[in-house]
């Protein structure tokens, strides 16, 4: 026969921190947990080791808590409420990468007497919360580098964002392990789906895996309503940005192919319906072309090819239906200059231009043309000194958009490549 539950049930023993005195200055200190191993005196900054089964014996280990003047956003003892449970900051640590304080991670150890520790960390204004896990990483850790994919045995996929070497520069409060300024760790940081983070730390041959999340400003506010924090946004992981850069390059390549195809198609498109040469004298007096038919399908392009050479031409062109029904009037500035300067040849402008018309009804049309032109620096003229060849094409496509698309595609590929290269350099 066994004893019933009610005879065995007991009230919960009360929790009370352990009272000790600093081994160096005698200041009264409070040890929050019987598992504590390291405590830094809040008065004299001496670092003591806690020993004995009751953790009430202090042994002076060394002076100082490390880097003086270290700024922490949260004080020791700060309350942090997470999933209905209140934790307190029992220790603070400053970890520095590559001996460069610009790359500092502040870790706040969150304590509850009856729950596993949580680790609140802050790097460049981005806050995260981590806890220890027991699953393992597949494959050999030595082969894991930044950008590499990895899987854990619980079936999740991760991407290594960084492999970092950190040194402990500052410590205060009380910790359940032995720690001292100068301790080093190497950490593999991974990004998972939905903002999940994974960090594997290797210290003296031991490996510890912690999983967590990036905290939002709202989560931090709810966890610590009494604290105002500047919260940054987590940068997108390098591997994700590399993927973006590859996507940009792929989009550029796609645009290149597409616009190249469009350009190849448009360059030879349309049907020539009229071609005529006009002399300088004709143009000066206002010339009328021979009639030509238009079916009204698609765009009409009028290509003007002049023999302007180191000079300019201003031409007015009217599309006339029948004998005198003007349906569209436009003009064109043509200028072409070239030369040799300092041993190098140069040129600017073009001796041709293309005009576009849309919406012509089916019928017979003519062109009315009048032009003036000049040579060199002449700014005005009363007559044309140059002739003009006019070609009318119906059903043409404006290849300018395809050309612009091609240029844009090349620029996109270049941008993607520069992004990719920059990220790769950063990753290295």
């Amino acid at each position, binding site marked *: *026969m*066994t*004893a*019933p*539950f009610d*005879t*065995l*049930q*007991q*009230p*919960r*023993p*009360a*929790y*009370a921190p352990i009272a000790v005195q600093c081994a160096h200055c005698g200041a009264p200190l409070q040890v929050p*947990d*019987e*598992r504590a*191993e390291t405590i830094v005196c809040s008065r004299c900054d001496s670092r003591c080791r806690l020993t004995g*089964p*009751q953790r009430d014996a202090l042994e002076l280990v060394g002076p100082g808590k490390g880097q003086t003047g270290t700024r922490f956003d949260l004080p020791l003892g700060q309350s942090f409420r997470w*999933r*209905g*449970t*209140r934790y307190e900051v029992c220790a603070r640590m400053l970890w520095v990468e590559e001996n460069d304080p610009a790359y500092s991670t502040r870790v706040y150890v969150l304590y*509850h*007497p*009856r*729950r*596993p*520790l949580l680790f609140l960390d802050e790097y460049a204004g981005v806050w995260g919360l981590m806890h*220890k*896990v*027991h*699953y*393992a990483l*597949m494959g050999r850790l030595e082969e894991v580098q930044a950008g590499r994919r990895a899987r*854990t*045995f*619980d*079936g999740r996929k991760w991407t290594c964002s960084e492999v970092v070497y950190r040194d402990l520069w500052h410590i205060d409060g009380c910790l*359940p392990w*032995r720690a001292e300024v100068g301790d080093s760790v190497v950490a593999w940081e991974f990004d998972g789906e939905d903002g999940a983070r994974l960090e594997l730390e290797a210290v003296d*041959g*031991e490996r510890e895996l912690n999983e967590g999340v990036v905290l939002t400003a709202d989560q931090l506010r709810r966890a610590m309503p009494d604290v105002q924090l500047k919260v940054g946004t987590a940068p997108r992981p390098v591997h994700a940005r590399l993927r973006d850069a590859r996507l940009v390059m792929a989009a550029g390549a796609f645009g290149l192919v597409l616009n190249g195809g469009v350009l190849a198609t448009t360059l030879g498109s349309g049907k020539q319906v009229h071609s005529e040469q006009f002399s300088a004298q004709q143009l000066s007096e206002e010339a009328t072309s021979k009639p030509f038919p238009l079916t009204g399908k698609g765009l009409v392009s009028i290509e003007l090819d002049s023999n302007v050479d180191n000079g300019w031409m201003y031409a007015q062109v009217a599309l006339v239906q029948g004998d005198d029904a003007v349906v569209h009037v436009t003009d064109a500035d043509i200028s072409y200059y070239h030369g040799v300067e300092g041993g190098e040849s140069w040129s600017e402008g073009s001796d041709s231009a293309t005009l576009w018309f849309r919406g012509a009804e089916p019928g017979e049309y003519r062109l009315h043309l009048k032009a003036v032109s000049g040579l060199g620096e002449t700014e005005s003229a009363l007559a044309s000194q140059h002739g003009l060849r006019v070609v009318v094409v119906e059903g043409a496509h404006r290849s300018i958009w395809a050309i612009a698309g091609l240029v844009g595609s090349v620029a996109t590929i270049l941008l993607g490549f520069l992004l990719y290269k920059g990220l790769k350099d950063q990753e290295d």
Partner: protein
Amino acid sequence: MSFDRVQCPSCGAPLPDRNPGIVVSACAHCETVVAWDQDAARDSGHKSRLPQGFTRLYTGAVGELKGHRFVVLGRVRYSYGPGFWDEWCCELHDDGAADRTRLWITEDDHELAAETGRGAMALPGPQELRPGARVDAHGKGFVIEEVGRAECIGIEGQLPRDVLPGETYAYADGSSPDGRYSIGIEWDRDDGQATVFVGHWVNPDTLSLDDEGLDW
């Protein structure tokens, strides 16, 4: 209903109601560790007092794990050198069940793992196991996380295990690669036989106690 009413052989204080299979008790009054010897209480010559208030479980706690009600009968605290862990002996009590089964919940750095003894297994000795080694036990694969030597530094309550303060044994523990299951291995100090405990890591939110003591 009657129970074996026993007094502490050292101070005469009444010991808790004795449950079947209990082989060691700690007197709450004088801290004497009492061993049951041929149905008689014997003073083991050891005293034991463990700190209170720093653990989630406690002797006399009643709670529920995965739908099973349990009561904590007692604990053993083992030291591994720089630190220690507790092994809580729990008795399961499901409504309608005639027998009560026992479960050990390990509490290490406030992490909980619920394990049951799976008996002896032919395993390599502790000298041959290293952290990272793979061990197959009861149809599951495990990765050893820690190998060391444990010393019992105290007991409290009632225990169905013959363990006294000062005793040492070699141990190893680990997890299944997916992090769900846990394993504990103890090597007998006399014959070197390995006893295996297999269980699962307990998500703190899946275990509830009638008195959680969340306000601290």
